[in-house]
């Protein structure tokens, strides 16, 4: 099995090389047969990598501890579910998983376009295969999951060996969200390869109209959706597993996943401008390529151990491969964009500051500044080491300071942007659409002020969130109302009908509503409370409006871990609302401790309890309690964003009609 896995990986690499060479030479010599065969080969790479991945899963499930990877990340008593999940728990396995996803995506893209876009496709094939090839190189030469365990004999030879049991999966990873988090995030990372491959293909074939954007719009959306979901799942994991009461700490690996999402968001918006107005052509290419490079960069950060992080894999020698690959792509892409700059002239110029184009411009500006700040902050230890010879790191204040105004500007644009007409908008129309939402949002602040909330920043956030939600809903409902009047249908029915008539527009609205809820939840973090106390059975503690009474301290044992736990009854104003059992576990195979948070979630706030440790005499438990307002709105907003993304993906007649870049009666303006 081990040999089969390894050789099929080698075979996959050989096929990749043939496919790259074939498609390039096929274009050069205009040889259709060669191009075709390269395409077929690219699809067969998927088969080879799948066999390899299947082998690794088989080895993991059957607990073959002769394989280093299996011994490092599983043990016999690990549940089957986690044994399979161990496929992407470690460095080399997750890279193989990545390669497999990439080859799958490549095969699907090639299948979708087998009879279409023939001018672009050979280049697309070669660029998809170049990135697949890069990951295969990593798998084969730097992080091979099929490495056997070996022991050096006294005579210097290496003898194969097998262990009786493995070291077990890191307990922090034994959590449901953590099991699905990597595949989801990886799909995001991998998905952004498609717009990149088409962007490079457009550059190489000099077909720089918006065709490449139209083909890849759905892929970009899918990748963006998965990336967003992956980030949120990661935050959820941090919240539930790390037990420090928060979900985002500007950790390097968190930042790495955020970077391509930010440029991807920018791309989704600026692509519309090219579709409608033929502007931002070079910029869109830059964004597609940058997003891909940031995905690779994110992997590089996570894998090379260049900056330390709670999420990162151990140190390794992968760094050089990544740097070489990223620089090569960067140089080729920059060269191509410069060479093609004549074809990248805009069809139109900006007419007015109050136009959709300019709102997208500012949206992109802010998103890119955000991306650069996060990048700078994350890499600061490396940069300062390079220039000053000492490592300096920056903390959350650096990121928060910049991102509070960025988030506010983005919220303003989210609410107002859809009301900016293409080319030019009058102030009167903007006021007509936005005055009421703005006024109502301000009115919402009054009860909050009466409640005694004086922090101006969360108030500002909530004002803008309400503004986004009201402005978006007002327009949504107005459109539905028009249809209801015309057709005499029920309100909900017309709401559904207009949504499916123009999924791009209303899907976007749903995403925007999700964004409003998400930021509403984020702003709740200003009012987090925290306290801790040692409790024996019968003792109680107070946090916020809750009272926690300890009724029991427990100890126990399972196959996988031993645990100590406290049973706490939570009272809110004398009424029992929940029984919480925070736990501390010691995993047997890995000899690692981990904490199991216990949670009482409500829409208003989370009561979050952690078992921090035992007192020295063992009779008391140190309990740390948090009250985190509005956290659940973050997840709800995230789910709404995903729903909106799915709606955007549904094809419809109207969406196709919207795309012509020059509408009737719209002349080329000077």
């Amino acid at each position, binding site marked *: 099995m081990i040999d089969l896995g390894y050789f099929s990986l080698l075979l996959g690499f050989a096929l990749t090389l043939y496919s790259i060479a074939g498609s390039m030479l096929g274009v050069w010599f205009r040889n259709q047969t060669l191009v075709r065969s390269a395409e077929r080969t690219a699809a067969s790479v998927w088969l080879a990598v799948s066999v390899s991945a299947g082998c690794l899963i088989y080895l993991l499930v059957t607990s073959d501890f002769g394989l280093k990877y299996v011994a490092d990340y599983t043990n016999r008593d690990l549940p089957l579910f986690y044994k399979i999940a161990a496929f992407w728990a470690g460095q080399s396995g997750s890279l193989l998983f990545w390669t497999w996803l990439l080859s799958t995506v490549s095969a699907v893209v090639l299948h979708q376009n087998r009879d279409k876009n023939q001018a672009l496709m050979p280049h697309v094939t070669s660029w998809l295969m170049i990135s697949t090839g890069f990951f295969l190189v990593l798998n084969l030469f730097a992080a091979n999951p099929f490495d056997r365990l070996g022991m050096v004999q006294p005579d210097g030879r290496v003898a194969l060996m097998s262990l009786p049991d493995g070291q077990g999966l890191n307990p922090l990873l034994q959590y449901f969200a953590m099991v699905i988090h990597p595949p989801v995030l990886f799909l995001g990372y991998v998905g952004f390869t498609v717009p990149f491959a088409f962007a490079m293909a457009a550059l190489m074939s000099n077909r720089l109209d918006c065709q490449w954007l139209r083909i890849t719009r759905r892929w970009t959306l899918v990748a963006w959706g998965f990336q967003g979901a992956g980030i949120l799942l990661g935050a959820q994991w941090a919240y539930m597993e790390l037990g*420090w009461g928060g979900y985002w*700490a500007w950790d390097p690996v968190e930042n790495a996943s955020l970077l391509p999402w930010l440029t991807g968001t920018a791309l989704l918006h600026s692509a519309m401008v090219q579709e409608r107005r033929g502007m931002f052509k070079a910029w869109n290419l830059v964004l597609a390529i940058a997003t891909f490079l940031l995905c690779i960069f994110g992997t590089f950060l996570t894998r090379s151990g260049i900056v330390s992080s709670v999420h990162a894999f151990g140190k390794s020698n992968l760094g050089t491969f990544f740097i070489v690959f990223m620089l090569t792509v960067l140089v080729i892409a920059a060269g191509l964009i410069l060479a093609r700059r004549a074809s990248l002239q805009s069809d139109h110029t900006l007419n007015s500051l109050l136009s959709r184009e300019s709102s997208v411009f500012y949206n992109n500006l802010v998103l890119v500044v955000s991306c650069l700040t996060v990048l*700078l902050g994350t890499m600061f230890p490396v940069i300062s080491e390079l220039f000053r010879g000492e490592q300096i790191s*920056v903390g959350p204040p*650096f*990121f928060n300071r910049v991102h*509070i105004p960025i988030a506010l500007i983005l919220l303003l644009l989210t609410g107002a942007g859809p009301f900016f007409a293409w080319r030019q908008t009058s102030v009167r129309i903007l006021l007509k659409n936005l005055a009421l939402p703005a006024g109502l949002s301000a009115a919402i602040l009054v009860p909050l002020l009466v409640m005694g909330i004086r922090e101006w920043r969360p108030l500002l956030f909530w004002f803008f969130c309400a503004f986004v939600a009201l402005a978006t809903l007002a327009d949504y409902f107005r459109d539905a109302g028009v249809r209801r009047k015309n057709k005499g249908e029920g309100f909900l029915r017309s709401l559904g009908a207009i949504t499916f008539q123009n999924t791009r527009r209303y899907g976007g609205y749903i995403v925007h509503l999700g964004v409003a809820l998400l930021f509403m939840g984020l702003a709740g973090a*200003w009012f987090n409370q925290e306290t801790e106390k040692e409790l024996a059975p019968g003792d109680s503690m107070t946090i916020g409006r809750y009272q926690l009474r300890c009724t029991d301290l427990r100890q126990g044992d399972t196959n996988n871990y031993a645990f100590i736990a406290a049973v706490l009854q939570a009272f809110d104003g004398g009424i029992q609302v929940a029984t919480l059992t925070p736990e501390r576990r010691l995993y047997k195979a890995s000899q690692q401790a981990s904490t199991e948070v216990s949670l009482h979630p409500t829409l208003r706030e989370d009561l979050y309890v952690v078992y921090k440790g035992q007192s020295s005499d063992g009779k008391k438990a140190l309990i740390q309690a948090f009250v985190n307002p509005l956290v659940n709105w973050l997840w709800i907003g995230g789910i709404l964003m995903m729903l909106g993304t799915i709606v955007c993906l549904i094809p419809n007649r109207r969406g196709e009609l919207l795309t012509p870049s020059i509408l009737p009666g719209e002349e080329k303006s000077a």
Partner: protein
Amino acid sequence: MEGQEEKRKNWKRNRQDFFAKNPPDSRTERGLAKSELPVVWFYAFLKGIFSFERVFGMNTKWKMAAGATVIVAVLGWLAFNGFQESNTYYKTVDELLAMKQSAVGMRVRVAGDLVNGSIERRGDTVLFRLVEKGPSLPVRYVGKAILPDSFKEGAQAICDGEMTPQGDFLARRVQAKCASKYEADYSTADSKGGKP
């Protein structure tokens, strides 16, 4: 709708008419002293810069660029502030001891091995020493949070905090490392996270 170019032509024509009717030297004839001319010019200059025509008739591209510059400048300034507030220097035990008083008041992260027999608990305070190669650094940790399980003699510890003028290190957050795994004690961390 009249185009950008037409607007500009109209404006130019109007200006020419104005100057034809009011030749520049006619102003002094209105009773202005020559010494007052710079004031008039300055006023005209300001009016020229901030006139409605200048600000709102400016090329859209320039307006966008101006807006972008303002946004980037403000964000850059905030980033610089945030940097000053949170920059932490990574120092080794030896480097920190060599810096003596100059290290006081600087946010530092220092890593080293826990000296055997140096851990001493006094109520909320934990005293211990970190060593790398040469002399050891006395560390004081005051916190209600208990230290992680892996915080034992012989383990590696990473401390965030600052040097006091007395020459010991006041740790705000202690992470312990054993067998290449970190276990952080986040409770006293200032990274309360979550804020956008």
